[in-house]
């Protein structure tokens, strides 16, 4: 594992719920990232976020990390959950709340 992948692993493991996104939760820079934040907030769950726009290495490296070419990406307890479509779909089915223990 190279440095970037290691750094991503550490970030993923740094909290139970970690969202890689464009911008910050209060100022998302992309509609899909904003939607992911809204869903997490609806679940009333505490989460950490990482702004990939502030780190080009992570922005590229995260695509390989989970073989997933788009952002946002949600991780719960170290496990890749999905991008914005999957996050929203799971929320609507009540599966995300279960996963988050919310």
């Amino acid at each position, binding site marked *: 594992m190279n440095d970037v992948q290691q750094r991503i692993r550490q970030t993923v493991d740094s909290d139970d719920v970690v969202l890689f996104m464009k911008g910050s939760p209060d100022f998302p820079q992309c509609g*899909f990232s904003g939607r992911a934040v809204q869903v997490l907030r609806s679940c009333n769950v505490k989460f950490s976020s990482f702004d990939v726009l502030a780190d080009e290495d992570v922005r590229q490296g995260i*695509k390989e990390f989970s*073989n*997933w*070419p*788009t952002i946002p990406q949600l991780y719960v307890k170290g496990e*890749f*959950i*999905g*991008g*914005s*479509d*999957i996050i929203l*779909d*799971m929320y609507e089915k009540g599966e995300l709340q279960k996963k988050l223990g919310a």
Partner: protein
Amino acid sequence: MVMPEDIKKWIEQGLEEARVEIEGDGRHFNAVIACPAFEGKNSVQQHQLVYGVLGDKMKSEIHALSMRTLTPAEWDSERG
């Protein structure tokens, strides 16, 4: 500019017997995709199959692709 029909064609060429409904404005696209290869896979794995087919196009031509993936049976039951 990428047209919805282009993406439909790429997916159909890469995924055998795929059915694709797609709309978009050249930058943002919404797709519903059904394919026998999705059977027994979770959503992440299904999306990864589609991303795999689109490859580097996801990094360049396609700015954003929102998708729902279905098995053929799910597709049929949704469309009655």
